[in-house]
């Protein structure tokens, strides 16, 4: 496909990229400390796992559903990962693998029950949220695991060479690229979007809805698991409340990135920029020593703005279509 300049201008992410660049430059001009290595490091660390959490929700939004249990899966994986290493002395690679398996199993459960019951994923994942969280609390008795192996801790603190870039960021970047390819260039990814656009049409075209839905939930669980383990690396401990605060931000970034909750429209790059915008705003408010409650207000305004912009775009497209039709 030839990417012409006009095509780039049509992309959802262009406006967001401008927002990121402009806000970054403005903040840096007023407060040069914004670009200090330490500050950039903090910014990138918080972006790293939020990016994966946002993608975990985005893939479910793509099929027109919601996953309320992203945080609960992440939390369960986080404490399993750290508990296996601390209590059972299991090696790091096996612990990572076990964490991924647990995430995939949780996602499969969400998808399988949704497909078999025909009940909305909103309800199913609301139920599994409590189940996963309950298991989490049962295992930990609300106590964190403190004895994380040194190499895991080091990974959480490491930077690439002399740059302020955290090692932690590598995984989310790889995952973002893979997700872009998956959504835009693979048959399963396209079938998911088709399903999100219209369940009925997709089924009539011979797309298997159970395959699409279960796959999406498995990917979501898998990503939530990775995010959970990254947070353990970052915090240097496995606390049972990891994941508790993920839910709303997981929707914020895809929505800022132009995703439609009814399904069928998501954009990986725009979602990533959405994460970045949220991080920049939070960071800027810290630098300017503004009360933290403003972060919330800002976030709310951002979401409203994003939704209005999308509405306006769709309206313009509709008008264009009407002009076409009356020819």
């Amino acid at each position: 496909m030839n990417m012409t300049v006009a095509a780039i201008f049509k992309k959802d992410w262009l406006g967001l990229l401008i927002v990121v660049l402009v806000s970054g430059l403005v903040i840096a001009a007023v407060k040069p400390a914004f670009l200090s290595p330490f500050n950039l490091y903090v910014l990138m660390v918080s972006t790293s796992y939020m990016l994966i959490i946002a993608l975990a929700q985005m893939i479910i939004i793509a099929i027109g559903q919601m996953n309320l249990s992203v945080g609960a899966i992440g939390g369960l994986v986080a404490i399993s990962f750290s508990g296996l290493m601390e209590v059972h002395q299991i090696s790091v690679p096996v612990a990572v693998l076990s964490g991924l398996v647990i995430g995939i199993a949780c996602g499969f459960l969400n998808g399988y029950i949704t497909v078999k019951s025909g009940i909305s994923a909103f309800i199913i994942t609301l139920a599994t949220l409590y189940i996963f969280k309950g298991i989490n609390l049962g295992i930990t008795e609300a106590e964190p695991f403190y004895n994380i192996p040194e190499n895991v801790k080091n990974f959480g603190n490491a930077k690439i060479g002399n740059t302020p870039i955290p090692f932690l960021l590598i995984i989310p970047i790889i995952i973002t690229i893979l997700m872009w390819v998956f959504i835009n260039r693979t048959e399963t990814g396209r079938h998911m979007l088709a399903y999100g656009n219209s369940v009925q049409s997709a089924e009539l075209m011979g797309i298997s809805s159970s395959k699409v839905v279960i796959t999406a939930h498995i990917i979501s669980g898998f990503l939530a698991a990775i995010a959970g383990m990254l947070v353990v690396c970052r915090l240097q401990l496995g606390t049972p409340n990891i994941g508790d605060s993920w839910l709303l931000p997981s929707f914020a970034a895809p929505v800022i990135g132009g995703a439609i909750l009814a399904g069928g429209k998501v954009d990986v790059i725009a979602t990533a920029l959405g994460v970045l915008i949220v991080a920049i705003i939070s960071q800027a408010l810290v630098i300017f020593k503004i009360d933290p409650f403003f972060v919330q207000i800002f976030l709310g305004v951002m979401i409203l703005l994003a939704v209005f912009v999308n509405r306006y775009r769709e309206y313009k497209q509709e008008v264009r279509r009407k002009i076409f039709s009356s020819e």
Partner: protein
Amino acid sequence: MSEFCLEISAANKSFPGVKALDKASFRLRKGSIHALLGENGAGKSTLIKIITGVHRQDSGTLFINGKEETLNNPNDATKFGISVVHQERNLIRRFSVGENLMLNNLPKTVLGLIDYDEIAIQSKKWLEIMDLDIDPNTVVSELTVAKMQLCEIAKALSLKAKILLLDEPTSSLSPKEAENLFSLLRKIVRDEGVSIVFVSHKLEEVFNICDDVTVLRDGQNACTSENIKNLDRKKLVRLMIGRDEQIVKSTRKTDKIKDTVLALNKVKTELGHENINLELARSEIMGLYGLVGAGRTELVKCLIGLEKIIEGDVIINGKKTAIDSPKSALEKFKIGYISEDRKKEGLILIHNVLDNTSITVWSQIKKAAGLVTDGMIANKVDPYIRKLEVKTPSNYQIISNLSGGNQQKISVAKWLAAGTDILIIDEPTVGIDIKTKAYLHELILNLADNGTSIILISSDMPEMISLADRIVVMKDFKVNGIVENDRDYDVVSSKIMEFIHS
């Protein structure tokens, strides 16, 4: 090889409580266009579902190219080259045309990733067969309805369809678009070796394009694969309804038509209507006729306050008024609007009969505390549900389970219950069988005789001429002319056509 590419003999199919098909037979000649006709509920849909593998017949045999076959699911049907173009548009609107065409079999690069260039090349071929001069990269939502439909047919052809089922393909096309569709259908029958099953309520189309006709009535064959040359319109109608078509005789007493209730004076709207002058009298049926896109539905939407009128006067019962919403249109001025799109705008499909019928009267019957009980509702609306002979097991049946004709009756009943003075009826009989249609016609005439003023929008010329007292011809959001209707079909229709083409 058999002369028939598809043959069904003596198929029976029962659903709990209904015998949908009773020894129904059907033979599709290779390279022919075959009309499948029948009223709503005659068994057409069931037969189509058997052909497409959605249902299986209880007994009876199905032959494809002379060989007995069993279709267990829609995929089996696809394998035998059977493809349906559904009434509802079934493309993925946010995807490109090319991707929609190839979605079942996306071409891939060596890495296993989707090859969009190849999609464009491969899909172009099928678009060209359908004379569609569109870039395969165009997003479907930017196409007109007519082009979307052609894309669907192109998609079916790309799946190597040899038997194509078209379910009311022209219901949302303009006459010109329909004519274009027909010439393309003839072309693919000739060049691509496709055979077509054509379902329609419009008999003109059947005579225009079909070679053979099968008529179902109450699940049985009223005629089986008859050559169209042996039939005329009258015979066909008799086969479908078991008696002659009822021409609504004009028993209108025009002396009742007096006193202007509604007048539009030099109205200009946000949507682009210019200089609209109209007068509607009590008891009058005023028709709005025009081609698709003439601005008729848009005009009445401005009138009831859904869109804005920016210049000119709306005068109701002699008083200049401004209607700002459908709510005030109903409550202050007693104007009701029966939408052409009953599924999207007329009914709440997941609610029951009672709730749908009573939605317009809640505000009239609520008690002091603003509460409404089922009993109060039933008292108010039940007479109308009965009057319209709505076929429903109970008033608590969910609307989406009723047939199209009965759904339309509910959307009419709702406004009867509301007791409107001016009723706007938009395409009341699209997709409705002949019997219900005749019934609705009588109802509209009755309403007018009893003092309701009616604005009727219809693209069905016979319907227009049998109902309207005056016919306003619209074109390009303007009034092109007004025809006094003396119900002489030939004279009036030619006058209308003159205005449309002037």
